[in-house]
């Protein structure tokens, strides 16, 4: 079995269920060894895209290529992909070791060999001591490591992860996030990770693919996506952005670039005048929500000391502004 990383390419991949199109001509190239996050709200087609790459969903139109092979009609095991399921889908009747050895057993590997290989994978994910346990006897994080070992035991070229962290509590989620990134680096293969959390995508990905309504909105590094959102949707979905329209054009302004210029008297008529609608203390920062006189909602994220210099409270009239270089024009 090949263990080399391979490029993955989607060419106008489409998934239609009757009249509804879940994925609409998605084209994407993921170089070998990339941590790629498919990011979007639920129902945006990110899971369908992943399942088509995995071979768990038939492709209505277009092609999926792994390396130099078109894999449209190949079953998952023949594609060199492996999938890690949202709830891990560990076989409840098999021990941890047998779970990891499952795909080797299916391929007809002799018992001694597959069990020692499983043992090897388990120690790689720090689960060597738990080989005899049943999945139900493990914690969420441990189950995830076993699921990872089970997926990686076949030396896949691409690992597909369907919302792998959503079943964990927040603290464990951050720890497992770091582990996933580490395994991706160690194995050097591509991880394609579906998530609806922009925070998760930014922390993990080399390449973020923001999807909406069955289409790709933007592809880029986390920095590109966050600092240069192409569309209103991306700016709003990534969060931390104000979308404002001036003279018929839409702009994104990062919330931490918005400045409060002090309270103003009510007779001053400025388009940049706003009323404070909410103040949230967040620890290191303070979120100040405002409504501009033209009805646009604005959010400013201020460092605590910055806020303390000129504190505002709900109902105050303030003057807001930002540098022209800090606003970023949106395509739509």
């Amino acid at each position, binding site marked *: 079995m090949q263990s080399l990383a391979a490029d993955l390419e989607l060419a106008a991949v489409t998934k239609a269920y009757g009249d509804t199109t879940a994925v609409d001509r998605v084209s994407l190239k993921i170089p070998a060894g990339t941590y790629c996050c498919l990011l979007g709200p639920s129902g945006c087609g990110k899971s369908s895209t992943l399942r088509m790459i995995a071979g768990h969903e038939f492709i209505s139109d277009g092609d999926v290529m792994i390396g130099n092979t078109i894999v449209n009609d190949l079953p*998952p095991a023949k594609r060199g992909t*492996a*999938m890690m399921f949202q709830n891990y889908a*560990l*076989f409840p009747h098999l021990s941890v070791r047998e779970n990891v050895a499952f795909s080797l057993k*299916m391929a007809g590997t002799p018992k001694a060999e597959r069990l020692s290989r499983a043992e090897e994978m388990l120690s790689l994910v720090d689960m060597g001591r738990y080989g005899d346990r049943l999945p139900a006897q493990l914690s969420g994080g441990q189950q995830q490591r076993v699921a990872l070992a089970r997926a990686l035991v*076949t030396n896949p070229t691409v690992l597909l992860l369907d919302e792998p962290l959503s079943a964990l509590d927040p603290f464990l989620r951050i720890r497992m996030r770091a582990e996933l990134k580490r395994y991706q680096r160690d194995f050097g293969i591509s991880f394609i990770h579906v998530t609806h959390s922009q925070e998760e995508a930014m922390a993990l990905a080399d390449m973020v693919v923001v999807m909406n309504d069955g289409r790709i909105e933007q592809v880029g590094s986390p920095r590109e996506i966050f600092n240069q959102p192409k569309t209103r949707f991306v700016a709003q979905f990534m969060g931390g952005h104000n979308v404002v329209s001036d003279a018929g054009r839409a702009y994104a302004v990062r919330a931490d670039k918005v400045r409060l210029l002090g309270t103003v008297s009510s007779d001053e008529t400025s388009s940049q005048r706003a009323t404070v609608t909410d103040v949230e203390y967040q620890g290191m920062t303070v979120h100040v929500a405002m409504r501009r006189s033209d009805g646009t909602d604005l959010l400013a994220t201020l460092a605590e000391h910055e806020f303390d210099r000129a504190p505002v409270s709900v109902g105050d009239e303030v003057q807001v502004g930002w540098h022209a270089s800090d606003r970023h024009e949106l395509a739509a």
Partner: protein
Amino acid sequence: MTKTLEAPADAGAAPQDKRRDAAAGRVRRTSWTPRWVAYAQAAPMALVFLLFFVLPLVATFIVSFWNYTEYSIEPAFVTTNYTDVFYGCFSGGSALCTTFATYLSTLKFVAIVWAATLGIGFTVAYFLAFHVRTLPMQITLFMICTIPFWTSNVIRMISWIPLLGRNGLVNETLVSAGLIDTPIEWLLYSDFAVALALIHLYTLFMVVPIFNSMMRIDRSLIEAAYDGGASGFQTLTNVIIPLVKPGILIGSIFVVTIVTGDYLTIGIMGGQQIASVGKVIQTQINFLQFPIAAANAIVLLAVVLLTIWGMLRLVDIRKEL
């Protein structure tokens, strides 16, 4: 097993609780429902069980040791009824004694009916659980499976007669189609007819628990198996069958115990020519030989209980439920 483990813990905890309660000076309430309500809810079923199941069973057990003659039944404690049941069984003769022969005949039906209902039941349940996608359709098809149960057992058996009889529908059709010259004799009042009727009657007892087990299998497990390169058959043997084992076991217990004690179906469909344990007991009751009938009933009960015990050894049902 769990009892013995928990017992010391309970023993350790109880005095502590008592001390705390004593310190508080009163018993702490643990629920808004008065305790007697729970007992009241269980009482009707417990009463029915006691009056109509436990008491008769105890009576049967006692009577099985009584003495009887052609004209009387006397309270006593003799084991002659049991030695009569097994008369000639352990004498070392080459021919089987009546009791063993009867049990062997019953065992044959149990084996045939169990294998057939398991095969059909598993297939039907698999179809319902994995191929029918929508819940309303599953419910509809499930209801169709239960249609035979809308009529009585006896009527369902009798309705086989016009179909399978010497001049029944099957024979008429085969003769007029020129496939056979003379009607097939073994269609009715035969082992075949008995097995057919039993399978028809009891397949649903296999379908229901297996279907229930299958519906509880997480669909992502099947995908995970497919992802791991398992073929359809490998998924069946490595994932689905191990996970529906409890369902198979429960269905098997239903079918095996019912068929072991059945004498109505064997009587009607076998034309009263095929022996069964139930039939033996019924005959003895007709001759008012209650003590030996009771002894036979106790032996039958013991055989059924042993069978269930053996089957439970195969699958740890407590773990699976």
